[in-house]
């Protein structure tokens, strides 16, 4: 995952893959997922047979412009901090009356068929393209989520004693050929958080931040995180606040 010229003008270390990532991002089939996402946003579903168009993503019911750039944030109706996918799940269970079990049956898709959450994330994230990331930082629970995310980032557990920093800890260090950025540092978190969700070239499939948290814990040899729960929301708060102010330029590409 290379480093790009952050919006703050800080010339981050130029990775050998910078050209590849720039050209691939310009030429990735991301809009195909946005089209499907728009349909999913408007499609009636669940026992209440309503669409998600009244879902409040933090800017008011149904307001999409800038909603993604304002997440994660605190939501009074659920009394907790939520990232995009946690919030979408909330709307599916409240507005549409769907069971949590049904709504989370297939949250991670594949190259043949993206999941509902993935196409919704593509469509909603596009509406924040060009806007600065501005996650919630003022509410006490937002501060608590940041602090918890920070502690989780360094917390070592599991059979291989890994924490996030085992791979994302040191500048200039590689795993195989990939230079995994030390995400606790804002200048490294900025270009990463500005480009999720994304089309993953190695699997030709669209992936989201809940998938990234899920797959990181899998590679830490830990059990599986509950989709949309507070632990991933806290980590995503930590990472997004570290990147706050960066101009969001997704949905983009990942290796």
């Amino acid at each position, binding site marked *: 995952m290379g480093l790009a010229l952050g919006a703050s003008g800080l010339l981050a270390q130029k990775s050998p893959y910078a050209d590849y990532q720039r050209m691939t991002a310009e030429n990735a089939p991301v809009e195909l997922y946005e089209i499907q996402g728009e349909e999913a946003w408007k499609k009636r579903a669940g026992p209440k047979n309503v669409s998600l168009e009244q879902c409040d993503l933090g800017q008011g019911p149904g307001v999409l412009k800038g909603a993604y750039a304002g997440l994660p944030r605190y939501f009074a109706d659920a009394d907790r901090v939520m990232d995009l996918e946690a919030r979408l799940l909330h709307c599916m269970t409240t507005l549409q009356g769907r069971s949590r079990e049904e709504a989370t049956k297939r949250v991670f898709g594949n190259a043949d068929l993206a999941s509902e959450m993935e196409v919704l994330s593509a469509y909603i994230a596009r509406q924040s393209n060009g806007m600065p990331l501005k996650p919630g930082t003022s509410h006490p629970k937002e501060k608590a989520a940041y602090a918890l995310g920070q502690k989780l980032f360094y917390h070592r557990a599991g059979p291989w004693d890994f924490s996030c920093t085992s791979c994302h800890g040191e500048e200039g260090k590689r795993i195989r050929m990939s230079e995994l950025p030390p995400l606790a540092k804002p200048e490294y978190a900025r270009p990463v958080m500005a480009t999720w969700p994304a089309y993953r070239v190695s*699997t030709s499939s669209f992936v989201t931040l809940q998938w990234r948290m899920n797959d990181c814990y899998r590679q830490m040899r830990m059990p599986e995180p509950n989709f949309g729960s507070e632990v991933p929301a806290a980590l995503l708060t930590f990472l997004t606040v570290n990147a706050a102010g960066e101009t969001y330029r997704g949905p983009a590409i990942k*290796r």
Partner: protein
Amino acid sequence: MLAGAGVVAAGLLAPLHALAATWNKEAFGAKSAADALKGIGAADSAPSQDIVIEAPEIAENGAVVPIEITSNVPGTRSLAVVVEKNPFPLVAKFDFQEGALPYVKVNVKMGETSDVRVVADAGGKHYSASKNIKITIGGCGG
């Protein structure tokens, strides 16, 4: 979930594909770059600086390698893309007419580090240029 929905097709268009060139089975089936080029009648081509291949020097994954090709050879009517080390080297061949510029941007698959050769046909003569792209396998295999 939604595959098949939202086919963005407007009205009943005349079956466009009936007019397309037949797919060159022999050239696309060739296992060597030389045979592939012979298959499109471009057995020998003169090296040319006027074919510009814009592509990364190193790619993080061979499944999606972005390539942008421009031919400044006057009168270019077609461009062929050949990845020398692929199992079937001939990747694509585009014929341009009615004002189309000899230009294409496309993502290609590369099995391993290889030269990518572009062959232009201008007035029956063939010109070519090539660029090496290094493919690495990222990730930790976990």
